[in-house]
């Protein structure tokens, strides 16, 4: 059993109650539909009130929630005939990043994404979705392959960050991320990014340079984790709640900054309540965006991607003196 989200508990209790009542009605063959309806309405209201007013810290918890759908869940619902491809051809196969070939509406695409585990054992093998350099190099290899065969790339972003460890540093974690950033700008194929869970710093960005950046309603994307930020600025990781607000890491904030292009709304009560419905919405957005991007030539695409990121940044400049 995964640990439930604290603010989700009243909803969970009500969900259980509805279920209980439904089972009871069925068992005893009595009509409780009015009572059930009342409870369901209350449940709906509860979910709406809670999920429409999530604080940035609560969103961070939703984004990291163990039951939240992962890249492989989405792949299962969105694409067909997925064939996972492994390895960076240089060192190893990093299970914190998955990638491979699949069809989207009959069209071949390359899919790459961070992969977290569903339970402890899988999370250990997937290193909690924190890649080593070989993960980023595998992703780049698959994207270059996509370019060779002129098929679009879809990236799913969901990581606490690149792994901070001895091996990762020895093998050039910084270089691996930097190279991905630079090379992704040069790909002559459409790249669509979906930030579906946790967008943790450079480790997330290394898969998040694209022509369209979509973000799930309750996903987060930040330069540093709220805990990391609190411990550096206030020397107190317990102030993560405060840091989560200060960092402006929600999808709504990022849309305001022009860092992402669109928000994909989640099923009521979060993606974890209905992964298939969530996947369906993502699928629609990917298809819509791909159609738009296909009208652009290769050169236009590359230029467009450069321009898109070139303009990000906020500063003042005294033009008069220049």
């Amino acid at each position, binding site marked *: 059993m995964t640990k439930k989200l604290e603010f989700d508990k009243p909803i969970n209790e009500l969900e259980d109650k509805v279920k209980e009542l439904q089972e009871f009605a069925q068992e005893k063959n009595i009509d409780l539909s009015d009572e059930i309806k009342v409870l369901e309405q209350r449940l709906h209201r509860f979910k709406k009130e809670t999920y429409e007013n999530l604080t940035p810290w609560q969103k961070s918890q939703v984004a990291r929630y163990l039951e939240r759908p992962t890249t492989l869940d989405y792949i299962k619902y969105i694409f067909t005939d997925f064939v996972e491809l492994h390895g960076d051809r240089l060192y190893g196969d990093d299970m914190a990043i998955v990638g491979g070939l699949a069809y989207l509406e009959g069209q071949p695409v390359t899919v790459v994404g961070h992969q977290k585990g569903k339970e402890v054992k899988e999370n250990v093998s997937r290193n909690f979705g924190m890649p080593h350099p070989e993960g980023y190099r595998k992703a780049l290899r698959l994207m270059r392959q996509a370019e060779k065969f002129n098929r679009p790339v879809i990236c799913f972003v969901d990581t606490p960050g*690149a*792994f*901070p*460890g*001895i091996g*990762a*540093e*020895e*093998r*050039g*974690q*910084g*270089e691996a*991320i*930097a*190279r991905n*950033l*630079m*090379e992704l*700008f*040069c790909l002559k194929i459409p790249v669509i990014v979906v930030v579906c869970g946790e967008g943790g*710093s*450079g480790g997330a*960005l*290394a898969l998040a*340079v694209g022509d369209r950046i979509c973000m799930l309603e309750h996903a987060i*994307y*930040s*330069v*540093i984790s709220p805990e*990391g*930020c609190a411990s*550096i*600025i206030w020397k107190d990781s317990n102030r993560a709640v405060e840091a989560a607000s*200060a*960092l*402006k*890491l929600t999808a709504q*904030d*990022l849309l305001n*900054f022009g*860092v992402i292009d669109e928000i994909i709304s989640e099923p009521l009560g979060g993606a974890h309540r209905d992964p298939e419905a969530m996947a369906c919405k993502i699928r629609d957005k990917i298809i819509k965006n791909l159609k738009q991007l296909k009208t652009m030539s290769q050169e236009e695409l590359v230029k467009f*991607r*450069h321009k898109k*990121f*070139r303009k*990000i*940044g*906020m*500063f*003042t*400049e*005294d*033009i008069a*003196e*220049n």
Partner: protein
Amino acid sequence: MFKDFFRKTKYAILDTPENVERKEPEAFTKCDECGNTVYYKDSDKNFKVCTRCGYHMKLTADERLSIILDEESFLEYDTDLETLDILEFPQYQEKIKETQELTGLKEAVVTGEGKIEGIPSVICVMDQRFISASMGSVVGEKITRAIEKAIEKKLPVVIFSASGGARMQEGILSLMQMAKTSAAVGRLNKAGLLYISVLTNPTTGGVTASFASLGDIIIAEPGALICFAGPRVIEQTIRQNLPPGFQRAEFLLKHGLLDLIVVRKDLRQTIAKLLAFHKGV
């Protein structure tokens, strides 16, 4: 004779003690590495390198420019860019103001063009006195513009990195500067121009994971800490002590992540030599 003697005693009265006292705090510094007392007059001759252990002390952007560039050859770019506290991050604005007053700098990087042994180049130098030379919107923009200027003028680029990483206080916009600067290096590559990246102590986080690692030639100063994740973060994560020398320039060279380690006194000549190979490209 009597008169002469009188005069001599008069000359012996010196008003120096006062002067000496005033100069004393600035006359020497302690080496961060070995604790050795290093006199500025010695260390300046030695480019701020400890005379005992060879430790390369941190340089300000001005000091760096003066030891690398030909005299009076520097033309600074984009002097007026200043940060906007778009997140309204707690205490950020005060910190910026304070740092600006303390250092006389507007931001953490100085960019421009100058000559290195007669060879014109675009040069960027990060200055750690400015919030650990962390990269926010202004640093990202200035580096990007400098690279674009190099493309326009067909000049090589030399960047001296030193940074605590992306600047937290500007949130996601800081993170995006990693992408922006890396894209600029990509365009420089396409234009066939040389980029020499010089990593100085310490170069970390988002700067290591973007333009600093993308040089055609990557040089480091001896002993420089160069990493993506800092040693303390790694220790906390893996709960082990790190091996000695971990993430230092020599360690990176051994692991194939650098081209060269060059001592400071030879840096100018080495860069000039490397630039000369690419003259007229």
